[in-house]
């Protein structure tokens, strides 16, 4: 069956291409739409940004994504908008484009189409356009010429005006869905629509790649040019898109993206939400999932220390049924998990914080936005009558896997929440971790900074002084 979607308002039923062709290569090579650029092919520069639309409650909703990290079957049933579709059919510039021109916001111009698409998606969102929101929306786009000031100025003027090519057309709905799978040249891409279907496929094709948002696996396609023989894509499974917030538990289906999870995280765990806003960029968070972050079991895995500190659990599913496993038991080692070959992640659940529980998470990196962490730290604790209770401290970037810091916890639990107690941290953390040195930071820095993040929690919970430069 062909892959069906719409491109700048025009229907497409694509056959005869590899199912692991990236959307970027498809646009530039097959469609000859060369406004979308390749700057890095690793989802970091944003020059390849396009917008995906879906029907929403109040009209179409748009999300910016990196076309370099997506393969064409991921467009199943979607409306894709590229820079060529932004202007009117008569060539009249869209207000986003006009704003960039008026602000002298282009120099070499190579990053510009990507910025324009990120800005277009941003312009369609409800909510304010203050500087913080603007930087969050632009974090996935790099410009080497302008220094950003004019681009940010252009963002302040954005209005939600429809894209030129979509003005008279309804946005594509689920009716355009492709078939159960797409085959070409010996490669197969499965598009299951239910958990049962997914469980059967998982059992039947244990060697097939399980693909969620593709922000990690996409690199193997985009950069290494790997052609996976078989892929099972989880995002079309409606049960995996469920989000629930009841009985004191927050539950996210495996295909729920970071962006989709953010409103509830914001409500219950603002510090976790703030950290998630620094995972990748808007483009990445519109595709990437918690389940993907867990399944790759990265030693840093920004969400993993948070989930460990929060005592979250992972639901693993097979044809035979499902089981819940604490995240701590799910992660077994460097890129190693407890998931059996016929299992897949179905959901993640996080118990809400009890009364007086504090949860805070920190990310250290060379750049604030869109950088892989040097150290991630997450703390969940109570301080009653000045004494630390039930501290759960977890770190990423400190070992071959994200892990709890048991010595740190022991050094502080039951102790006064004071500078004297904190003085024991440096030794405890060195017992917990023997980090490696690499381009993100030397072992000594990791140890020192990780200990100091405990000091930061202490400062933030006990003094009114600013304790982060980004809080100024």
């Amino acid at each position: 069956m062909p892959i069906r979607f719409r491109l700048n308002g025009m229907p497409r039923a694509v056959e005869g291409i590899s199912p692991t062709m990236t959307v970027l290569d498809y646009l530039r090579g097959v469609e000859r739409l060369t406004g979308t650029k390749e700057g890095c092919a690793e989802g970091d520069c944003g020059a390849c940004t396009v917008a995906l639309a879906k029907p929403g409650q109040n009209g179409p909703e748009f999300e910016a994504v990196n076309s370099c990290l997506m393969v064409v079957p991921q467009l199943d049933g979607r409306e894709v908008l590229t820079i060529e579709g932004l202007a009117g059919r008569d060539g009249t510039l869209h207000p986003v484009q006009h704003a960039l021109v008026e602000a002298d916001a282009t120099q070499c111009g190579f990053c510009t189409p990507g910025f324009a698409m990120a800005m277009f998606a941003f312009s369609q969102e409800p909510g304010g356009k203050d500087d913080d929101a603007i930087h969050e929306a632009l974090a996935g786009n790099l410009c080497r010429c302008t220094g950003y000031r004019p681009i940010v100025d252009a963002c302040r003027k954005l209005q939600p005006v429809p894209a030129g090519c979509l003005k008279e057309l309804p946005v594509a709905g689920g009716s355009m869905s492709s078939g159960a799978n797409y085959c070409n040249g010996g490669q197969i891409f499965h598009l299951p629509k239910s958990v049962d279907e997914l469980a059967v496929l998982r059992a039947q094709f244990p060697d097939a790649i399980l693909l969620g948002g593709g922000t990690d696996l996409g690199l193997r396609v985009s950069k290494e040019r790997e052609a996976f023989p078989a892929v099972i894509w989880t995002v079309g499974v409606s049960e995996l898109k469920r989000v629930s917030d009841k009985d004191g538990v927050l539950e996210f289906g495996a295909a729920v993206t970071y962006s989709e999870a953010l409103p509830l995280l914001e409500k219950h765990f603002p510090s976790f939400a703030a950290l998630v806003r620094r995972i990748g960029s808007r483009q990445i968070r519109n595709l990437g999932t918690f389940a993907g972050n867990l399944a790759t079991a990265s030693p840093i895995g920004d969400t993993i220390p948070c989930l460990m500190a929060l005592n979250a659990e992972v639901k693993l599913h097979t044809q035979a049924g499902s089981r819940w496993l604490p995240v701590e038991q799910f992660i077994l080692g460097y890129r190693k998990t407890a998931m059996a070959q016929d299992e897949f992640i179905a959901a993640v659940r996080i118990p809400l914080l009890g009364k007086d529980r504090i949860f805070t998470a920190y990310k250290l990196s060379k750049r604030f936005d869109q950088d892989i962490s040097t150290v991630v730290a997450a703390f969940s604790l109570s301080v009653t009558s000045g004494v630390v209770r039930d501290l759960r401290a977890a770190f990423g970037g400190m070992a071959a896997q994200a892990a709890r810091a048991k010595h740190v916890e022991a050094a502080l639990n039951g102790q006064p929440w004071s500078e004297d107690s904190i003085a024991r941290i440096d030794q405890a953390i060195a017992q917990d971790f023997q980090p490696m040195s690499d381009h993100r930071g030397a072992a000594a820095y990791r140890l020192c900074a990780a200990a100091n993040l405990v000091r930061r929690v202490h400062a933030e919970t006990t003094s009114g002084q600013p304790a982060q430069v980004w809080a100024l």
Partner: protein
Amino acid sequence: MSAPLARVPGGIHASVRHDSAAGHVSGSALYLDDIPNVPGSLEAALVLSPHAHARIKAIDLTAALAAPGVVAAILAKDIPGKNDIGPIRPDEPLLPTDMVEYDGQPVAAIAAGTLDQARAAAKLVRVDYEPLAPVLSLDEAIEREQFVAPPQIMTRGDVDAALKTAAHRLSGEFNCGGQDHFYLEGQIAIATPGEGREMHVFSSTQHPTEIQHGVAHLLGIPFNAVTCEVRRMGGGFGGKESQATMIAGIAAVLAWKTRRPVKLRLPRDDDMRATGKRHPFLIRYEVSFDDGGLIDGLDLMLAANGGNVADHTPAVLTRALCHSDNCYWLPNLRFRGYACKTNIVSNTAFRGYGGPQGMFAIETIIEMIARHLSTSPEAVRERNFYGIGRNDVTPYGMKVEDNIIARVLEELDRNVDLARWREEIVAFNRQSTIIKKGLATMPVKFGISFNRPALNQAGALVHVYTDGSVTLNHGGTEMGQGLFIKVAQVVAEAFQIDIDNIRITATTTAKVPNTSPTAASSGSDLNGMAALNAAERIKARMTDVAAEQFNIPAGEIVFQQNRVYAGNRSMSFAELAALSWEKRVSLSATGYYRTPKIHWDFATNSGRPFYYFTYGAAAAEVAIDTLTGESRVLRAELVQDCGQSLNPAIDLGQIEGAFVQGMGWLTTEELFWDEKGRLRTHGPSTYKIPGSRDAPPVFNARILPDAPNREETVFRSKAVGEPPLMLALSVWLAIRDAISSLSDYRLAAKLDAPATPERVLEAVDEIRARAAGSGSAI
């Protein structure tokens, strides 16, 4: 009707938009990879060395050549002409014959039907290496006297005596890192064989003539057989000056061998591994000064990490030495420059071209002097500024005739009230224990012209058609900096026609020959003048035609706002163009310009290398986190001298963009080589250029008003591409200031650039320990 006084739209000094702005925002501006391949075209991929230093024992292409779609592979032996692409010294093979000298060095190249086929086949090339020990540190290179070019020296007075007798003396060493250009469009070239020996090359290059020469040498054909063309680059910053030759050269050799068009576009990782960057520098110094900070003697060593071959290193080093004075009179000095050879990729031109490293050295030293004397860097600078009419000769013997640094600093202070700002910072630091703020200013004096006099020349070609439309061509290249629109403004001004009537055309060696690179901030100075010369020659001929037509002296003919006036009679510019054709008068002219007054003696490192200086000043406020070393720029205020700006909007874009790029060099952008000499930061996921949130939230850049160039540059403008990058040293100095606050400003931070969180935290802990040891209050 007599001539109106209103100015022509799009003339000089107007904020005309970038000519490609609409094309940029609509995605219709074409870059090389957007040009459709003609049928039969091939795509190429490189095989890169995985070793920093190794002997090549054997290369087996069998599997690669048998792979699907592969048409050809090349090694050094397949180069028909001379295997060298060194821009200054002939020491740089396009492909190595027996040794690889850096991780990422291209060893072989493959051409295949598709890009995927080429890249897949490149992985099948078997190279048998015998790894050798690499030299990676500057210390080791200096110790072994392993250089890519001879050491350079600049001296004046008796520095040894000055160092012995002064009241205060400081010495030490510190480092600054390199910087990847990270142009958003990676390196790319398309080579197409023509009839006979002809070769046409599209190249994303700042130096089409060097591509032409490089390809001709490699193929063993005359220059006139090679045409290089470039309409625009997706950013250059110096990284597409000499480095583009490797890309174009490999494409051309593959095209020569296959007789088919070949495109070579590097994936980002290959681009970052295989091509050169800004030079990291090691700085050693010994300085002496009096109680007020007046410098008496400065013995300075600048060691540039040149990488494996010379490339631009000798010239970068010269410019670094020529900017180690910045704005200061140094009576006794010895500047030594070492162009170190190491086993990393050969470093190259990058915006500022050694100037940033030279100023990094002197300004860091000034800050150390200030801490030593418990005074401010501003006070020390004040004591040492070049005088007017006295103490005004640079270490290389050029008199500073146009010193306006005092005016620039006054303008900065008028905008921001530095004293009050300083009080706010100190007050904040008094009550904040974890977060500390820093504030610093930075004066800049930057010399304009290529150090090598021969490069300071330019050509242009202008045609007027009989409908009054004009095409403009010159030797400069457009990389986003707005050169094309500025030069078009000059021509619009000369002819007094709307800028929309001027078509800007791609740079090509077939139209304007023997060009200089678009570099050294010189693009509009040189090409603007050459285009003006061409336009004026045509205008003079058209004036004669008009004078004859109206029967008045030529001196009374006035071109104004698309018309040509003779008293109260007039005709349109287009009518005069048509009439000129009728009268058989040529409407095409070449233009030429060479910069006056300049000379340079390479043997003594002295002369007048610069036609003029451009000045600037900045103040920056930062905050650092003493727990994590994270830092953030909170505010930046800039004043930049642009002479009488040709285009204030374009110049402002250059100022802001250069500043943020400079910030990146000094803060987040860390090139990391592992112990085997492998670059570990070769993509944006690991190499972090500033993002939008990193630009200062309060960011005011201003062009110095009413400051026409005292030299006769094009409409009294000044160059702007590089100088504002060095304003970002204010950020570096502000971070040092914040760290120094931990010693009550009595100690200077031990810090190298870039000031990553790790380095800042280390410096914080170190200064605290030192301050505690010396009994200083914290």
